[in-house]
């Protein structure tokens, strides 16, 4: 039986969809059968992030309404045999699906996939309730901003109220230089406030924009720091102990490097 994870955040634009795409691709690259569910009905995006937008014929609303079979709506990834996407509908709204229908859908997916990852819409309304209905574990994505952390706190409270206890946190878009200067909340600051387990941190990285432009996942990019960060997250989901990257070491400045080279440090 598969494991069901929901990726959520409360606030929009913090990287839920990018995170869903990368974790899903990473798990599939490790040989697992993965189904990604876009539950952002009316604002479908996971398909374009994965570069699968032109293969959509049926969507999640068609499946729950019985217009097609689940198998017909699942889109197979271009790269990985084991990676599938169930797209959201673009021309309907959140009320087109209800939590009971989601439960039925997920029960069916669980028979066939190792991991089912649900991309939750922003907000705390019906779209959120649909997304968490069948989930067993929750991943909360935030960024080091007051607004995003506040919304993450609210979401963690709502998840706990729905018996999704011990959600795991991903802190996205960290800028190590700003953290060092004291102009951005650090990982410790955020963990101190939210008091949840950390699943990983993702540094701000231009490669995310570049890979998303191409409809590819940065997790497959061996040279980028964000790709490494997502690979670490995937390994942690698979149960490995992987230390959190030390951002200071990664991004050492010119003078520090020079000092190291000439042997002062």
């Amino acid at each position: 039986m598969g494991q069901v994870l929901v990726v959520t955040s409360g606030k929009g634009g913090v990287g839920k969809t990018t995170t869903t795409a990368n974790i899903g691709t990473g798990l599939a690259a490790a040989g697992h059968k993965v189904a990604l569910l876009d539950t952002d009905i009316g604002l479908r995006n996971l398909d374009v992030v994965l570069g699968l937008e032109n293969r959509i014929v049926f969507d999640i609303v068609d499946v729950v309404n019985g217009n097609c079979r689940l198998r017909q709506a699942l889109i197979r990834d271009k790269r990985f045999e084991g990676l599938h996407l169930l797209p959201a509908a673009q021309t309907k709204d959140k009320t087109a699906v209800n939590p009971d229908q989601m439960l039925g859908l997920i029960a069916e997916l669980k028979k066939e996939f190792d991991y089912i990852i649900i991309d939750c819409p922003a907000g705390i309304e019906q779209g959120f309730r649909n997304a968490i209905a069948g989930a067993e574990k929750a991943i909360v994505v935030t960024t080091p901003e007051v607004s995003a952390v506040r919304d993450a706190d609210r979401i963690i409270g709502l998840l706990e109220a729905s018996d999704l206890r011990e959600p795991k946190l991903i802190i996205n878009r960290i800028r190590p230089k700003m953290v060092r200067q004291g102009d951005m909340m650090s990982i410790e600051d955020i963990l101190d406030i939210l008091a949840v387990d950390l699943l990983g941190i993702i540094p701000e990285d231009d490669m995310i924009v570049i890979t998303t432009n191409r409809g590819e996942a940065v997790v497959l990019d061996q040279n980028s720091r964000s790709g490494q960060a997502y690979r670490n997250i995937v390994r942690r989901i698979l149960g490995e102990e992987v230390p959190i990257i030390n951002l200071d070491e990664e991004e050492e400045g010119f003078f520090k490097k020079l000092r190291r080279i000439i042997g002062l440090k």
Partner: protein
Amino acid sequence: MIASANSYSISGFGHDLPAKLEDLIDENTILVQRTLRSGQSLHYNGNVVILGDVNPGAEVAATGSIIIMGSLRGVVHAGAGGDVNAIVMAFHLQPTQLRIADHITRPPDNGAIDPDYPEMAQIKGGVVTIESFQYAGERQGKVT
């Protein structure tokens, strides 16, 4: 009213209209004077003529043919009731997905073909083919 104005403009091309288009002349045509944006969809029992664009995420389905006087970047389905003679035409044909009757096509994954002339998609020999739409160009040349 809209339908008759539209059929006039098509029949105005005269007797030398390509046979394919001649067949399409039909009273049951809707004229849409706006751009369809993401999340908007148009379903019509008949032909659809759009004076505007069809953006990514928008969807047009018609039992007849679809003519877009603008850019087609979304999803279109002509001959939605199963009519294999339906066509899709656009000034700029770059659909996310193009369907005619029960045929579904999408642009190639790496193909960056982006012509700047009108194109027409139709079923020929059981497959969807896309050809440049020469006729309008010649016509334009004659007028100016």
